[in-house]
């Protein structure tokens, strides 16, 4: 608590000091201050969304320009606070509409789209101004001094930092970090990724729009080419990435040197501005891939892990059961799963076996909702789950691991598990979450490695971590996709014992596996698939002696 108070007092102190600048500085330095602050807000707001989700957005200027144009149109009609309110509303509405339709685009598609969005809006505004308003530009005569602009931007800077700080500490912040690492894992951890991204996109857009509105009176004349200058989007990206977009204060570390550099270049080398800018930019990409903040962090020792008492393992009591009826899935002409039915009683371990390509992983994908089924019924505890979103199925208590391990590589083991705790049906968040996460890690044998970064883990430890994350969902049904594959003898025995202990805790397990020893010793009954069809269902000893099964695995001669 004391530390927090120190921080809070420091922040308020800094705010007061910065607020005094207009009273002391001459107009040149005040203008420089305005430039610094407006880029600080934009870069921080950009990083709020893009830094965590890794969606590189070039739409900054679209929102900025909308803010500026709102002032151009309404500046002299409405009182100032109302103008800001309207600008903010328009910006957020646009962000929501655009976000809903485009946030499912990923990678390069989103980059190009976001860039196109600003060009599109610029053209539409230009067209409107020329054809309807009958003049390209607008004059803004609003009685606002440079100092007042400065103070408003300072307030926005403080607000955006405060918002970022609050979000980082919230479930939303964690959700975004997980999304940035691996969207599939995020969905399977119960995160509604569309909602999380949308909210963040809108928050980020709000600050960009307001910045545009606040800056507009400074120009006195705006036209679409000024208000929607695409350079701005790029500059913001450079600054944020240079500083380090993954950390709240990172972008500001990038803003300061760049604004000063722009100032220097445009004052001294106006003709070579763009060449020098491009060169500086390339040097940054090659020399500082993780930004200034990355450089600082590498120099600083990592904070020692906080020791907490592991808590006893809490597991859902009982009543877990899974039923699959007449399930079907085809990929084009290939029918991967055909008319498959089976059931798993509470506390049962069901083996799902068959030769490679027989459709086992597809079945798991259908159950967890990663793929939509073409036909059939899937019930968990009597409740139909087919067709629900992956994150909702995860929340209803179906957890899984992946055949090719998927951990959130740049997060610690504890954070990997906390992600699932925070979004499950009965979420745990805040102080208690860390202890529960450590308890789960202890459960899978990772007590000592809880604070290590997941990418440093060995293969078996990554598998353990994945299991801990699945267990954190407090599942009724656990889907293990070749979880025992690639383990040595000792690890295998540990793994088998671990799965057995899960059953004793009341969990239903669906085991896709090729390790026959494990199937024999663990499974209550086995479903055998071949070419998408169920060919046997019964106790392991019986099905493994079945002629059809032997034929499927070994071919006709051995049957």
């Amino acid at each position, binding site marked *: 608590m004391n530390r927090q108070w120190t921080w809070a007092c420091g922040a308020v102190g800094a705010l007061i000091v910065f607020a005094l600048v207009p009273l002391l500085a001459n107009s040149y330095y005040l203008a420089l201050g305005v430039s610094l602050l407006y880029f600080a807000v934009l870069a921080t707001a950009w990083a709020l969304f893009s830094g965590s989700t890794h969606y590189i957005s070039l739409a900054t200027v679209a929102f900025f320009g909308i803010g500026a144009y709102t002032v151009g149109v309404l500046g002299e009609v409405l009182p100032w606070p109302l103008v800001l309110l309207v600008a903010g509303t328009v910006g957020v509405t646009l962000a929501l509409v655009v976000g809903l339709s485009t946030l499912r*685009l990923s990678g390069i598609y989103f980059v*190009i789209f976001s860039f196109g*969005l600003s060009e599109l809006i610029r053209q539409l505004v230009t*067209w409107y101004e020329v054809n309807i308003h009958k003049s390209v530009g607008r004059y803004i005569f609003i009685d606002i001094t440079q100092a007042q602009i400065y103070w408003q931007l300072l307030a926005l800077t403080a607000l955006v930092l405060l918002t970022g700080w609050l979000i980082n500490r919230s479930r939303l912040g964690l959700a975004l970090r997980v999304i940035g690492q691996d969207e599939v894992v995020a969905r399977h951890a119960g995160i509604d990724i569309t909602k999380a991204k949308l909210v963040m996109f809108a928050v980020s857009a709000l600050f960009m729009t307001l910045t545009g509105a606040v800056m507009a009176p400074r120009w006195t004349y705006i036209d679409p080419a000024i208000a929607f200058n695409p350079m701005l989007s790029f500059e913001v990206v450079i600054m944020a990435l240079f500083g380090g977009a993954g950390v709240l204060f990172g972008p500001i570390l990038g803003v300061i040197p760049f604004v000063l550099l722009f100032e220097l270049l445009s004052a001294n080398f106006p003709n070579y501005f763009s060449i020098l800018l*491009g060169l500086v930019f390339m040097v940054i990409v090659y020399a500082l891939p993780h930004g200034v903040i990355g450089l600082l962090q590498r120099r600083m020792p990592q904070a020692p892990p906080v020791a907490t008492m592991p808590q006893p393992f809490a597991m859902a009591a009982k009543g877990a059961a899974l039923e699959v009826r007449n399930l079907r899935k085809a990929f084009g002409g290939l029918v991967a799963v055909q008319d498959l039915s089976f059931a798993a009683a509470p506390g049962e371990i069901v083996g799902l076996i068959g030769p490679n390509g027989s459709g086992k992983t597809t079945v798991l994908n259908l159950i967890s909702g990663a793929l939509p089924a073409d036909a059939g019924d899937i019930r968990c505890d009597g409740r139909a789950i087919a067709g629900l979103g992956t994150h909702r199925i995860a929340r209803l208590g179906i957890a899984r691991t992946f055949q090719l391990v998927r951990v959130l590589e740049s997060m610690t083991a504890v954070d990997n598990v906390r992600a699932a705790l925070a979004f499950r049906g009965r979420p745990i968040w805040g102080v208690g979450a860390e202890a529960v996460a450590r308890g789960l890690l202890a459960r899978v044998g990772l007590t000592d490695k809880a604070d290590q970064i997941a990418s440093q883990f060995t293969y078996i430890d990554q598998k353990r971590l994945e299991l801990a994350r699945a267990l954190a969902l407090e599942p009724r049904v656990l889907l293990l996709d070749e979880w025992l594959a690639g383990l040595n003898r000792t690890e295998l025995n540990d793994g088998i014992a671990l799965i057995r202990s899960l059953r004793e805790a009341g969990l239903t397990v669906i085991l896709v596996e090729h390790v026959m020893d494990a199937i024999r010793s663990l499974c209550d009954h086995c479903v055998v698939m071949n070419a998408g069809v169920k060919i046997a269902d019964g106790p392991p000893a019986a099905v493994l002696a079945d002629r059809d099964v032997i034929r499927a695995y070994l071919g006709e001669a051995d049957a």
Partner: protein
Amino acid sequence: MLAVDIVLTGLIIGGMYALTALGLTLQYGVARIMNLSYGEFLVAAALSAFSLYTGMTVSPLIGLFVVVPIAFALNWLIFKLLLMPLVRRAKNRDVLEVDSILATFGLLFVIQGVALVIFGGQYFSYSYLSIPVSVLGSALAVNRLVALAFAAVIGLGIYLALTRTRAGTAIRAVAVDPVSAQLVAIDVKRASAFAYALGGALVAAGGVLVSMFLTFHASMGVEFTMKALIVVIMGGVGNVLGALVAGLLLGIGETAVARLIDPGLTLAATYALFLAALLIRPTGLFGRSTR
């Protein structure tokens, strides 16, 4: 005759888009470099063709044989010297995508800056073969038809080279899966460098052809980059035929909007078309379901 007019003009512009998009899809689909400075190379080639024609009275069609090999060599060097370090450093494709966007963005400013210093900000155009002929009742300049014919020949040549030759097969294999391509003894780095350079050569060819009938200026590269990107994405990354269809569609759509509604809304039309295509088929008109 408005409809014929729109379709013909649209086809010519669309053919240019398809040709430039073909180069981009080689650079992005094979070498995995998202080249934001792509359009700058087109403008540079157009400016070179302009200088050759006005300064030394070298016809742009001859100029093609000067500019294109230079562009090939230059792009090969850029890949080797500037982009290879990024490829080596990148842990996965996403990282490389972001890194290459940022690096080529820097390159964009350098090239544009140099072009502005040399040529200044004014508009350029020259008159070459601007003799009107009547095609299906609508008047077209010969230079446009010549440009379209050259684009078609170049595009067809590349298509055949990619599908019928050993080197072309290697390039297509790398486009599908760079890791597996190594397993069948394909030198992925060489194929990538070659594909990148070939992409650079194609965009230079596009630049020379476009310069024969369009007015251009030093800082309009971004516009071409965006259009090429849209065509590539609409057609499906790495899909030659898709790029052709998407390019032609875009050209016709744009011309229709310019003629029927307002020339100021062409970009808006482009993006509307692009968005619609992406929302209906997120991996492009002819794209595969996974990237």
